[in-house]
């Protein structure tokens, strides 16, 4: 009930984010139900149905990633001093956030069910009802357990992952501490079923940061605290006036580039004997494409997501490199600090964009019959990736609200702060845009003879 009341009183921007989560969940649920409809209509084509189900992993992963990002940004579930005193501590707030995530996702699933039933013609009395009755196997009765399982997949996965990400953790400082609360930690990977599938970007959001504890000595080497031993000051979320230690430099660049190169190599090797155009099979036209190309694409995407934080950090370092003034100093240092938060969704967006570019290069003209469901899936993945990036940007802005207010109090012009933000965005675009384009060209090159 508390989750409902908090959800009702939220600001419009927060409601919009929750509505977007519901929409993404609705789209994913509808895709899953359509897969079931196809399987019911073609009992003999089990392989094709399984392939469609496997492709659904990508939208599910994107939706879960977006839902978790929104849950982390939700102001209702942030620790607040007053609420902690009446018993709403971090643990209870974690449960609250899981419930509200489940609420939005279930809302979306219900909408998907309604649309599915409507298109099957089960809901009589409506105009245009049953428009896709033949496609969705309207003559077969609906299997209720399968429907419920498929519809519960997204809400359960999203709320479990969100709860794991937002779970209260011991304060940072020990070598085993995984990160500050709210950082997408490695433990999240266990909460989601279906990551082991063969979707392209399915494993991307949960990709383990390969150099977690190994990086711990880095900040001590960067700015050695002199005579004082390196203090482990707990960055308590309720205490904005005690600054937290800077995050360790993200070290995913070697791993990321290695995985990226391996992906490109695998794909090139697998595409050698394939006649042009030999892209992997889309569910719209099942032609049995080479599996190696798909594995290569997945590896490329994982590599981009791994390298994202480190590349963002490098961007920030370059921005504040040589004798910086106030503008470049603010832009660069903040980018370095926010590298982990911004870089990972940014890497995912780049992976999705390069995949989209490669697919657009491959499938134009030669195979124009991309069905509406494939288009819906692609739209879901792309939309969720972009929305996650924007949500991460909002989260970063919220986290820096105190500092921004203090800067405005000492008379920093708001225009300077805006230019610093624009400079950050421009630097990221200047680095990640060409990178995405190059990766996409390389990915599409061996397939377009």
């Amino acid at each position: 009930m508390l989750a409902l009341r908090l959800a009702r009183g939220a600001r419009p921007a927060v409601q919009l984010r929750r509505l977007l989560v519901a929409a993404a969940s609705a789209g994913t649920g509808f895709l899953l139900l359509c897969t079931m409809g196809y399987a019911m209509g073609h009992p003999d084509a089990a392989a094709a149905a399984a392939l469609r189900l496997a492709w659904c992993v990508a939208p599910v992963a994107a939706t879960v990633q977006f839902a978790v990002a929104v849950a982390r940004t939700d102001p209702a579930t942030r620790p607040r001093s007053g609420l902690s005193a009446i018993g709403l501590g971090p643990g209870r707030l974690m449960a609250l956030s899981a419930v509200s995530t489940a609420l939005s996702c279930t809302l979306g699933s219900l909408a998907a069910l309604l649309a599915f039933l409507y298109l099957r013609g089960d809901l009589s009395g409506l105009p245009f009802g049953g428009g896709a009755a033949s496609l969705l196997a309207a003559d077969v009765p609906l299997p209720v357990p399968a429907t419920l399982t498929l519809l519960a997949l997204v809400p359960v996965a999203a709320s479990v992952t969100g709860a794991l990400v937002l779970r209260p953790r011991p304060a940072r400082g020990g070598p085993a501490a995984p990160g500050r609360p709210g950082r997408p930690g490695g433990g999240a990977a266990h909460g989601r079923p279906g990551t082991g599938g063969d979707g392209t970007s399915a494993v991307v959001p949960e990709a383990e940061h390969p150099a977690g504890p190994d990086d711990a000595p880095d900040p001590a080497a960067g700015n050695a605290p002199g005579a004082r031993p390196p203090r482990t000051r707990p960055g308590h979320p309720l205490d904005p006036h005690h600054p937290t230690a800077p995050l360790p430099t993200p070290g995913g660049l070697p791993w990321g580039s290695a995985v990226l190169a391996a992906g490109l190599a695998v794909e090139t090797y697998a595409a050698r004997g394939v006649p042009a155009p030999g892209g992997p099979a889309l569910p719209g036209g099942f032609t049995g494409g080479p599996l190696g190309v798909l594995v290569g694409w997945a590896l490329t995407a994982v590599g981009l997501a791994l390298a994202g934080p480190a590349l963002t950090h490098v961007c920030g370092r370059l921005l504040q490199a040589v004798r910086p003034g106030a503008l470049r100093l603010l832009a660069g240092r903040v980018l370095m600090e926010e590298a982990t938060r911004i870089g990972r969704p940014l890497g995912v967006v780049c992976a999705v964009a390069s995949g989209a570019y490669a697919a657009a290069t491959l499938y134009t003209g030669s195979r124009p019959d991309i069905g509406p469901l494939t288009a819906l899936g692609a739209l879901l993945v792309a939309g969720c990736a972009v929305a996650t990036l924007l949500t991460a940007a909002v989260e970063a802005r919220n986290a820096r609200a105190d500092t921004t207010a203090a800067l405005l109090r000492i008379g920093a012009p708001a225009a300077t702060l805006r230019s610093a933000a624009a400079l950050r965005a421009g630097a990221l675009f200047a680095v990640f845009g060409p990178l995405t384009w190059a990766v996409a060209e390389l990915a599409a090159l061996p397939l377009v003879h």
Partner: protein
Amino acid sequence: MVAPPDNDVLWARALHVKHNGSPALCGVSLGVREGEILAVGGPRGSGKTTLLQCLSGLLPAEQGEIWFNSVPVHTMGPLVRERLRRDRFGWIDPAPVLVPELNAWENAALPLMLRGVGRRRAKTTAMEWLERLDIGGCARKRPYALLQAERQRVAIARALAPAPTVLFADEPTAPLHRADRAHVLRTLTTAARSHGITVVLATHDTDTAALADRTVSLLDGRRVNTVHLPPVAETEGRAACSLSA
């Protein structure tokens, strides 16, 4: 309209401010003379912070006038007020809110660099002020590696480095222990006097107010000459009112 007196650098008349309907200031008038240290006293919730925010142009007053050097502040637009704050005013928060990504000297040099001063000159000035406040050794440390008192000194150096005309200090020693408190306050007042900086200092502490030239007392959003509060009883319960006595 009465022109403000000549020697008042900052002058306010009949300020009325409400926070979301609840009254914060009810008709406060005061003048700040050039080069003086003016303490604004009064218990918590008496409107000290609101008065400082009004005077520094952070918070527009609903009624009343504010003049700075014979220029009306209450009629300025937000952009002009922002420039006035940047060029003429300094501000010290009760808690040191530094930019966590910049080290101590970069934090102290930030207002100078925002004013367009070159990096080298800004660094020299910031380092001088940090040396003066006894934290020159911490100039390359990030805020997380500093003690609270050191952070507050960095915040004071940040406010003093651009040599503002008026420095607003909103309980600058609130988060410090008493030893640090006296030291920080003494360095602040000494620096202000030697550089001719006018200081408006909000404090609820009479010891702090003793360092100032003049004290203006506020009580429940009004200016009072003497704060008459009921005397504190010696013991917790009074026998006369106790039912068990």
